[in-house]
């Protein structure tokens, strides 16, 4: 099983979530994060003094999925989260060795 971790624009969450749902991927965990990549950050001011907020609000979606679903999930996320400008985000894929459903104690792919 793989964990797909996608860091996307907060305003895209709703769309991505919806598209994943349509495709049958319901389970996910979402976290508010702040991130920095190539995007430069916004300049703000306080009493006329400038300061750069170089960590911008992003949303992290974590989904654990079966190995064979990874590509579809990635495609969906890219399709919906892309705007084409800097700051669209990143997706990381890694291996998860075990998944357990707390309610039932089931393990492995059926627990996803």
């Amino acid at each position: 099983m793989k964990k797909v971790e996608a860091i996307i624009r907060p305003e895209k969450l709703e769309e991505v979530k919806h598209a994943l749902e349509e495709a049958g991927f319901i389970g996910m965990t979402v976290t508010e994060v702040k991130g920095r990549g190539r995007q430069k950050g916004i300049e703000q001011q306080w009493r006329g003094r400038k300061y750069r907020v170089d960590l911008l609000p992003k949303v992290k979606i974590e989904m654990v999925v079966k190995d064979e679903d990874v590509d579809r999930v990635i495609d969906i996320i890219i399709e919906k989260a892309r705007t084409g400008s800097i700051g669209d985000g990143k997706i990381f894929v890694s291996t998860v060795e075990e998944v357990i459903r707390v309610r039932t104690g089931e393990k492995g792919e059926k627990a996803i």
Partner: protein
Amino acid sequence: MDWKKILLIIAVVQMCMLGSAFAENWSEEADVKTALTYVWLVLAGALVFLMHAGFAMLESGFTRQKNTVNILMKNIANIAITGLIFWAVGYAIMFDRSNFFLANADSSTYNLWFFQMVFAATAATIVSGAVAERMKFSAFLLYVVWMGAIIYPIYGHWIWGGGFLSSDTSPIVKLLGVYAHDFAGSGVVHAVGGYAALIGAMLVGPRIGKFVKGEPKAIPGHSIPLAALGAFLLAFGWIGFNAGSTLNALDKNLNLVVVNTMLASFAGATTAILITWIKHKKPDVAFTINGLLAGLVSITAPCGSVDPWAAVVIGAIGGLIMYFGYMFNENRLKIDDPVGAIPVHGYAGTWGVLSVGIFSNGVEKLYAANAPGLLYGGINLFVMQVISVVVNIVWTTAMAYIGFKLIDKLVGLRVDKEAEIKGLDVMEHRTQAYPEFISER
């Protein structure tokens, strides 16, 4: 306040002074009756001033966090700019052409100016909530000038300044034998604000995401405690708003005014609790707050002319009008009004003006409708109130339309899509409402 009233007040005050109004002897004490009225109106006006804190809190509570600084700035700028405009031209247009920039003013003028200025700013600020989260800050400031210099004082003049709806010499007044009556401004202040809000919200269009394929979506505000605080501050200020509007501390009618004001607001809130409990299974907090305010708006015109039981009825109906008006706006007109300003101030304001023509008990008072409403066998007062409502709506919508269209040409009404998505706070003011950054903690 109508023309007759204003004259009477001015006459009384002038009689209390030695010599002419504009050469008054400042080193003498005021007559005790005059002094009592002065002190009363300063305090009542101060309460109305605090309503602007109420609007600021209510509107920021009812909108999203990313636009909170913008809403607060609009409220501060509104009172500041309306105040200056009302000093420069508004007051003179509304009451006395010799008082531009408060020229030729004596103590009583100063007293009245303060009390009227906080009212003018109330009319102007109502729009702020309806166009929230998408109108440009600069466009809003231009609207404030337009409202404070033109829309408000001219309509105000017709009702309170001796214009054609309240002057003894006006043909329509002669014909019907009654004045249009709007005690503290359900029409002059609230409906004017409310219909300007309607036009503003229509022209600026709904927020992104409010209507999805024509379906209205909920966009909750960000802080109910702020909204509730705002509502309490508004109700507190309203005591000054209504009771002060006798413009005379010796008018015993002011006690009835206070009682009616309270009862109508209670009825409005209670009605909103009940209707939402029935219709949506749970008592809804945002509508409860709006219901309280709708009760207050409704009673603002009739509060000096009706019995307490009528105040309860008027407030309850005001609550219903608010609720169904809000639904109608969203479902049918597809208007996006984040704080509910249009049903609360516009529709309930109109209801308030009409209710005078229905419930006025006709008892002779220093300053009241002084003619019976429909329930007491009178027709003419009701007809006059209908006329004033029509004038109110036509004038306000037309002038607001012209104003917003002009402003659109000049600077554009709406922020661009990026600014709306990111929030006006960051894009228009480069700051956030809760600006503490993670690393700062």
